[in-house]
């Protein structure tokens, strides 16, 4: 019995090895250009990562080829799951490099992007951040670009919005302990809010926490006018649910992570005021949306990855734009070599669904406004509120 098992295991290992060797061996060459999709597909940010990938997949289905230097290349997306975890970042990144990707897209979540940054740098492969908003992703990195706005901007936008719309005097911030995205955004929100004369209380919940009633009571007892909770959707769902059952009617504000179906589903039918800042407002481009939705509805896996319905998340749209930005950079470079693309990227411009993408000196897209939208709890849909700038 044991011997048979041992043999079976060994054979499986060898097969696996050859499969990898074979699979990656014949990777480059031919008329294929590979784009690495460096996204979380599991872990805390798995849901967001999947939606971002959807955008890229859709874009790939819209335009599966690219013409570079008169030659037609088939664009192949190569995926690596970074499991929302920094300690898996290097090997996931190496996998993409090993597969011969010319450019990398991602990741959802700034921490994993920063963690893989040096690996991409050493390999000389440019990366385009889609929705990673932490300034450190691109700061001091010549190879990392991004097409979204940054946390200092987003935090300030939300602080301004809290002041202007709700006349907030006291804000309660809640983020996950050990999550750099949450803590970073809260930090900028706090700076801006205090500059506006607000009183800010910050608290953090430990990973794996599911009881938020005490935090909500704390917010209530602190006399908060708004709760700013830019955490990942798994926790957001619990916060929404529990503030409804606790009867806490303080408006909930959050950043781009909350722009997700998960939030809509959780908030449906509840008496809550939830407002988020994001990259894109659904309904801004009807043609694009209807075909995107048709594509999502056409495949059950896609539908499941989008959270079970066809509401477009802004990250999906950003993923779509990122894909085309990458193609634009290749066309501009006139080459599929990573080094050429990296050289071409700073001057690449692309007008996407979410607006014009143009990189500044640090490699960040020049964005001066964010979309603020609010949950219509009756219809479980997003409602446009405002386009808000810093000033």
């Amino acid at each position, binding site marked *: *019995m*044991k011997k048979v*098992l*041992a043999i079976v*295991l060994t054979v*499986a*290992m060898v097969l*696996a*090895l050859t*499969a*990898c*060797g*074979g*699979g*990656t*061996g014949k990777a*480059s060459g031919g008329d294929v250009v590979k784009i690495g999709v460096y996204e979380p*597909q*599991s872990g805390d940010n798995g849901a967001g990562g999947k939606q971002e990938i959807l955008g890229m997949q859709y874009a790939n289905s819209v335009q599966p080829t690219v013409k570079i230097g008169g030659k037609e290349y088939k664009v192949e997306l190569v*995926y*690596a*799951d970074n499991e929302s*975890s*920094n*300690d*898996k*970042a*290097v*090997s996931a990144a*190496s*996998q993409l*490099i*090993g*597969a*011969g990707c010319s450019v990398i897209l991602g990741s959802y979540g700034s*921490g994993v992007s*920063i*963690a893989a*940054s*040096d690996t991409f740098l*050493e*390999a000389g492969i440019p990366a385009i951040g889609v929705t990673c908003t932490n*300034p*450190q992703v691109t*700061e*001091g990195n010549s190879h990392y670009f991004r097409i979204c706005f940054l946390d200092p901007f987003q935090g300030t936008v939300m602080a301004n919005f809290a002041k202007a719309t709700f006349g907030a005097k006291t804000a309660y911030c809640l*983020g*996950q*302990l*050990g*999550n*750099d995205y*949450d*803590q*970073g955004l809260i*930090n900028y929100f706090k700076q801006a809010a205090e500059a506006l004369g607000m009183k800010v209380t*910050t608290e*953090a919940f*430990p*990973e794996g926490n599911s009881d938020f009633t005490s935090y909500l009571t704390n917010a209530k007892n602190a006399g908060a006018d708004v709760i700013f909770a830019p955490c990942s959707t798994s926790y957001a769902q619990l916060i929404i649910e529990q503030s409804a059952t606790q009867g806490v009617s303080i408006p909930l504000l959050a950043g781009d992570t909350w722009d997700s179906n998960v939030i809509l589903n959780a908030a449906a039918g509840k008496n809550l005021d939830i407002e988020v800042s994001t990259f894109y407002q659904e309904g801004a481009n009807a043609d694009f949306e209807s075909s995107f939705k048709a594509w999502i509805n056409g495949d059950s896996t896609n539908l499941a990855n989008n959270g079970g319905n066809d509401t477009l998340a802004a990250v999906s749209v950003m993923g779509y734009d990122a894909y085309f930005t990458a193609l634009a950079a290749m066309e501009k470079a006139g080459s599929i070599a990573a080094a050429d693309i990296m050289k071409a990227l700073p001057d690449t411009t692309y007008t996407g669904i979410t607006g014009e993408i143009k990189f500044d000196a640090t490699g960040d897209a020049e964005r001066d406004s964010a979309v603020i939208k609010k949950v219509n709890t009756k219809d479980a849909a997003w409602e446009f509120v405002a386009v808000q700038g810093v000033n």
Partner: protein
Amino acid sequence: MLTEKKDKTGLFIGAVCLAVLYVFLILLDNVIPQNSFTLLLVPVLKKGAIYSLVCVSMNLLNGFTGLFSLGQAGFMMLGGYAYAIFSIPKDQHAAVYQYFDGGLIQFSIPEALSNVLGESAGAIIGSIICIMIAGIVAAAFAALIGIPVLRLKSDYLAIATLGFAEILRAIFQWSGLGPITNGSNLLRKYTSLSAIKIGSLKLATFFPFFIAGISIALIVLLINSSYGRAFKAIRDDEIAAEAMGINLFRHKMLSFVISSFFAGVGGALLAMFQTTIQATPFKSAMTYELLLIVVIGGIGSISGSCIGAFLFIACNEWWLRFLDNGSFMGMSVPFFRDGFRKVVFSVIIMVIVLFFSKGIMGDREISFAGLARRIRGSKPSGGKEAPAK
């Protein structure tokens, strides 16, 4: 007195194998052209070496001293942080500690040494010093934690050490300590493996093997010394050990502190490998993973832990990744989608645990002396390399 003498041939073969490995690693970094295979191989090798060290240190505690401790990830975290904090260059402080006004500790050992000794020497010596600091910090914490928890027995010790690791993690993520630990945010821009080179000779893969090799050699020497025998005596029968004059608390503490020292060194190497460090991944799941490796390799076997570490890392992060991609050798397979790799992987682990409960090596060691004897055609007699039971 025959077996007392070191078998010279065995030692020689071992040394040659090690030398060949090290030369290969240096070639891998410098001469062998990068291709899709080496690109995947190199990170697995690096991480495998680091995990080997950490698992051997865990084996020292759990396998050789019989102390069931689950705090290893916590000590790795301490080491990783200590390393990073003391090696972030001065001009990067403002960027790294962006929310904490550039942080509290305003010097970098590798940088300071680079100014004196030149860049590559400074980076190498500086990072080695920081690795030592990492080990010492972890060991110091272990000594503090050990005073209360080592009085506890078996499962209670396990749960208390696990608890301490979780407490440490919360403290490190606390924004009150932000100026030192950067709170919930990453530490980065410190001296990483790619900075380890002599002139243009890259040592990025060699270095973790080198440090892990020395550390494991030290642990092996310790295990084969009088103290190592005392540890094993405690594992086999605490009451008899105490009756033979072995001070339980002192020896358990020694084992705990030494194990933590090397876990700290491993943590520092992991930080170098990852190029960024954050407290989040160092949770109990990581300790469980290490424990699984130790068991798969064989509790009480150093070479088993090393083999286990490489196999585990390779399977987890390389060989089985194709299971996630939806196709196998060009064919698309219905069950293959993301997450399937982990299912298969955990089934393999269960099979090993259930059907090969002694692990790959049991409590034996790979012995070059035995190998030499086998080559010469005589049977191995007694000693460590023969099956113990």
